[in-house]
């Protein structure tokens, strides 16, 4: 289990983040570490850098972590969170340019097969290709 890429889901909505994580777990079981967060620091709609950092650390794997996001602020805050990780972890986290639900399911399925972080990211991002 420690040898698969971890998946983090970051939505403006805690319900969407949790629901997406539920779908991922149903598809790939517990082979892949999945963490999620949603909501601003007050619990309203939005995203929170400290919660994203916690989620990345919770899903941590030596093979790295792929982050799936919904709207702009989730992406900007996720990029900021990556830069605030301890230096050894920063290069092993990628924010994927992919739709959050489909991207998370595809990324986790790919990760479950033991793929590298780059492969997981590529599979998720194929969904955004024209």
């Amino acid at each position: 289990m420690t040898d698969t890429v971890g998946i983090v889901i970051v939505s403006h909505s805690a319900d969407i983040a949790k629901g997406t994580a539920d779908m991922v777990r149903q598809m790939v079981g517990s082979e892949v570490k999945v963490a999620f967060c949603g909501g601003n620091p007050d619990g309203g709609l939005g995203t929170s850098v400290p919660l994203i950092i916690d989620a990345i650390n919770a899903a941590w794997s030596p093979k790295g972590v792929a982050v799936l996001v919904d709207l702009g602020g989730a992406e900007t805050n996720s990029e900021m969170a990556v830069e605030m990780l301890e230096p050894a972890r920063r290069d092993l986290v990628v924010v994927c340019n992919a739709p959050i639900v489909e991207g998370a399911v595809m990324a986790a399925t790919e990760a479950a097969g033991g793929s590298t972080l780059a492969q997981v990211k590529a599979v998720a991002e194929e969904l955004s290709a024209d």
Partner: protein
Amino acid sequence: MSVPSETFKSLVKAAAEQVIASAPELTSLDQAIGDGDHGTNMKRGCEAVLGKLDAISAQPLDEAFKMIGKTLVMTVGGASGPLYGSFFLAAGEALSHDKQLPDDLADVFGSAVNAVSARGRSKVGEKTMLDVLVPVLETLKASAGQPDLIARVRSTAAEAVERTAPMQATKGRASFLGARSVGHVDPGARSSCVLVQAVCAGLEARA
């Protein structure tokens, strides 16, 4: 220019309080073309900065700016957190480790503006906070050393924010609206204007 701790503290306090006072206006602008949370997000961040004001103003300027940046990053909750956070973090990087402001303020401000542009992968003309920050930077460069520098910066910011109204957004949530974003002042440009104006007012009161 040496900046005494008390002056720095009062400037940060005035800027944060002014943003908090503007929260309803920022929210209503953001309801028109965004997701309506800019006022509450900025208010939360500025309240967190006020809560740490004593610790922040006890630091050398570079560390003080970095503390402000990190506080905004960790508490604002919207895209404006990393954007304003990056502004202050980069300003901190560009400042020296003492209480001295460099003679060339435009250099520090320029580094901060570049960090916002890089974080948002945005540039001037896209109906964002950069449409206030970049004109302010240009005035800082063009009018450096002039006796009326502060007044010029104030009027630059005030004019620049109004020029965002006819722009069509191509970045951020407002870009989803396409042409419907035209006719509304950008909320991020407004909050940048509020911050710039508050610092200018504080400096004028001191002079």
